[in-house]
């Protein structure tokens, strides 16, 4: 088990280093350090101010090691990330770690309800369509799921803001307030949109899983032994369907911290997803690489955690 985890983590190191290199290569292929400075200082900034900014932010060095082995941006990029020295934002010089701490709360306040409610909605719905399989409820359910999956999240956002926020006036169109009295009001619409945009794929996935499990021999055996249907469903089918459910949930948990890019950006939620979008828009390389780095680390740890959790929910599975 230990050796397996170490081996998986070893692969993960390679993935993370590769991601960091790709990010550096892609970013500096289309952007020069002067662009970052100009974006930060504004178009009216004179060349001297640009140069001072580049020096103060250590962007006045060559990009690649073959240009200057001792001082180059690539090695500096790796050194800073691998030592978790995130530094300050290129856009406004604020410490990135502070921004991450501040953004995590709003992100979690959106993504955790979204995940939990998503499970509460999609698992019962998929059970429903699975049990009514081959009926019009099943067919309509699958049709609606495919329809829901086919529509862009952006369209849901704009549509919900227009219909529910503007026309029906049920919830604020956008905004955020962390106070307990106001938070549910602001989260209602983004959570609803997140649920609708995600429920189609989830229900189709869980339905397949439940259908597969309900036709297994152990279900038949349980029935033959006189077990009640509720017991069969909860203690046999659902429990045996836990592996795929768990895979999905455990993989999703690390990314809860990263926020939801589109939902946060469009609903004005000051979370980490919104911060990442801002960083992309403002050529803020320092913030962008931090978020990509954290994202890749979470992905690697999420993968390993998923593998370990298999063993916990299903004793037949062991990792070697």
């Amino acid at each position, binding site marked *: 088990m230990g050796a397996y985890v170490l081996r998986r983590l070893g692969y993960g190191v390679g993935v993370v280093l590769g991601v960091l290199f790709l990010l550096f290569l892609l970013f500096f292929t289309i952007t*020069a350090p*002067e*662009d970052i400075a*100009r974006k930060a*200082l*504004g178009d009216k*900034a*004179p060349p001297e*101010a640009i140069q*001072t*900014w580049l020096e*103060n932010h250590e962007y006045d060095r060559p990009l690649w090691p073959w240009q200057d082995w001792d001082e180059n941006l690539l090695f500096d990029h790796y050194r800073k990330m691998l030592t978790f020295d995130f530094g300050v934002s290129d856009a*406004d*010089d*604020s*410490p990135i770690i502070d*921004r991450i701490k*501040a953004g995590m709360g*709003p992100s979690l306040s959106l993504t955790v309800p979204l995940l939990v409610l998503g499970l509460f909605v999609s698992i019962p719905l998929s059970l*429903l369509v699975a*049990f*009514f399989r081959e*009926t*019009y*409820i099943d067919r*309509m359910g699958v049709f609606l799921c495919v329809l829901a999956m086919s529509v862009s999240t952006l369209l849901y956002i704009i549509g919900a*803001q*227009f219909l529910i*926020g*503007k*026309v*029906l*006036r*049920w*919830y*604020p*169109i*956008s*905004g955020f*307030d962390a106070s307990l*009295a106001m938070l549910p*009001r602001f989260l209602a619409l983004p959570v609803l949109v997140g649920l609708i945009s995600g429920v189609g794929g989830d229900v189709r996935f869980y339905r397949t899983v439940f259908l597969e499990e*309900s036709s297994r021999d152990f279900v*038949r055996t349980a*029935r*033959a032994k006189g077990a*009640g*249907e*509720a017991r*069969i*469903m909860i203690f046999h089918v659902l429990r045996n369907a836990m592996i795929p459910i768990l895979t999905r949930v455990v993989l999703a948990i690390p990314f809860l911290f990263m926020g939801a890019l589109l939902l946060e*950006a*469009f*609903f*004005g939620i*000051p979370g980490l997803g*919104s911060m990442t*979008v*801002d960083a992309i828009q*403002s050529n803020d390389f320092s913030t962008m690489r931090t978020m990509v780095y954290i994202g890749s680390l979470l992905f690697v740890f999420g993968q390993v955690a998923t593998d370990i959790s298999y063993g916990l929910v299903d004793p037949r599975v062991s990792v070697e």
Partner: protein
Amino acid sequence: MSGGHRAVNAGCAKTTLRRAQGGVLSAIRGPSDFASCLLGIGLAIIFSLSACSNDPYPPEDGEAKVLYSSFDAAPRTLDPATAYTTKAHSVTGVVYDTLLKYHFLKRPLELMPGLAVDLPLVTPLEGGRTRYRFTLREDLLFADDDCFELNGEGRRTREIVSADIAFQLMRLADPLIGSPVAETFANIDGFVEFAAALEAYREEDPAFADLAAHEQYAAAGGVRGIEMPSRYVLDITLHRAYPQIKYWFAMEFTTPVPWEAIAYYTGQDGRPRFDDHPVGAGPFVLSEYDKQSRYVLSKNPNWYGVRHPEWKAPAAIFPTEGDEEDRRSGRMAYAGRSLPLIDRVVVVREKESIPRFNKFLQGYYDASGVIKESFDSVIQGDGLSAEMEGLGMRLGKAVSPDVFYIGFNMNDEVVGRSNGESSRKIRQAMSLAVDSEEFLRIFQNGRGVPAQSPLPPGIYGYESGYENTFRRPNIERAKELMTEAGYQNGIDPTTGEALTLTFDTSSTSTAGLNQVRFYTNAWRQLGIDVQIDGTTYNQFQEKLRQGDYQIFQFGWVADYPDPENFLFLLWSKMGKSDFGGPNATNFSDARFDELFVSMKARDNGPQRIAEIEEMLSILERERPWIELFHREDYSLYQGWVKNVKPMGLSIPTYQYRDIDPTSRSDKRKAWNEPVQWPAYLLLLAGVMVIVPGVLTYFKERQ
């Protein structure tokens, strides 16, 4: 045997399915239970709907005199030495105060005393130097702040003295701060030497670099041209004539800054950085600042207008002089009232324009721009649509103090000066082909004023009746000019093919390229083939530095309302190739230069007007620019917002605004009553889908 077993299993499977279905609904024993369930869900939906509200503000905000606004992204910095954007100025412009201010109602803009007792006393000195003497009001206080505890426990503020302005001016020179306006203040005697001395001291002595900023400045000897003859008097000596310096004393770059704030707000020990925590002496304080979410400006009880209303200081009361439009709009009813008129400004982050505009329509923002997507439904003709007028909204239009233009590189062999009369005629012909009015109609919803010269409306020297001969589209005349230039039908006689030129642009988005294509299509009518060379901004800047370009497009937004701030863009001493200045056309004309130098140092008057007119006539003939347009901002205001009169130049006017909170509250209620029937309809639809299925199930089970 085995066949019999299969048969039993098959029978089992049938029963299994039924039982499985029974499992899901095992808790519901019959149709009546099911109906009860539906009723419960329905009631839950109805209750949750009755608690619904789209009001994004807490109830306690309802009746307060609060102005609600929005921002799309937080400013990079609020340090008045480096903040140079409209976003930043909307905060720094009211959190910091300046020696001079602009009159709120007079147009063209006019300076008046702010923190200073009067306008500066100007004294010419020997050697072409000039001294500006500012006298500060006494008993001015900074806003309450923790940083003043550096002067003793429990201290929350202190008096503002001339040394606080001197300190800020020295910060502008500090190379570590990198102020974007350091070059302008290099007109102050000893400013450049002070910057060099600071740098040298820091390099030589690490202990010096560890001192607090104000100690470093004192140890470096200060700036020769900044003197403080007394606690309240500040003398600024310029080593060359630059009368426009007075405008800079109406900008936050020259605001008093307490040394304590710089020493205290370092970003260490859990304190914010000075960039994010302004400590000023303006009418408002930044009482809440979350860059990602919202900020709040609250009335500053230490502001001299609040503490000393009896002074009736010009910048602390609503103006008593205004024009006919001010009287008609009711602004003059406020004449003489102490400022600020509102208690707070709440500014909420809205990254996307559509939600922002929709919230404005719901009454949750007090002002808004007009978004492209809703332009036709909001604006009809020159005014508001009937629907918007019915809601009590008002439209504010203001021509921005800017100019957008196409420039020719005057060092180029084809379109530049070396080709003499021929290239001048090409430039004149190309100028005649571009229709600014059509451009504005297609790309700006008609918002903008076609430019006839570099000077926009509201700037001294602008003549509304002036018509540039080469800025009224005339393709026939343009073709004649091309023939006179030796390029009949646009054919280059040396190659026998169409004259080919290059238009460099860093605006490579689809919209940006479409705009450039508008120009190139216009020139195609003359037979000129203009190729578009799209590059990144940096590559474009590099081309400018190397002089490797022919035609480009630029814009300029004024820092202050003086013609010098536009015409310097064509002064040869600002040439891009020779001096790295903003004169990207490298235009150089001896007479223009002579007039510019004279006009720059002269006070407004007939002589100055005559010089400006001659300069404009030179530009009209030489055509280094094709002047395109001056932008026109359309702003929508709710009916409950009073005293809206944009000043341009990124000057916020929150202290003059007033709100009728009762009217706002009533209208918000009327406009935002939730529509509940669709929820009941949804519920009904759900019932209609689910009930038949469940009834079928119960029927089968029985």
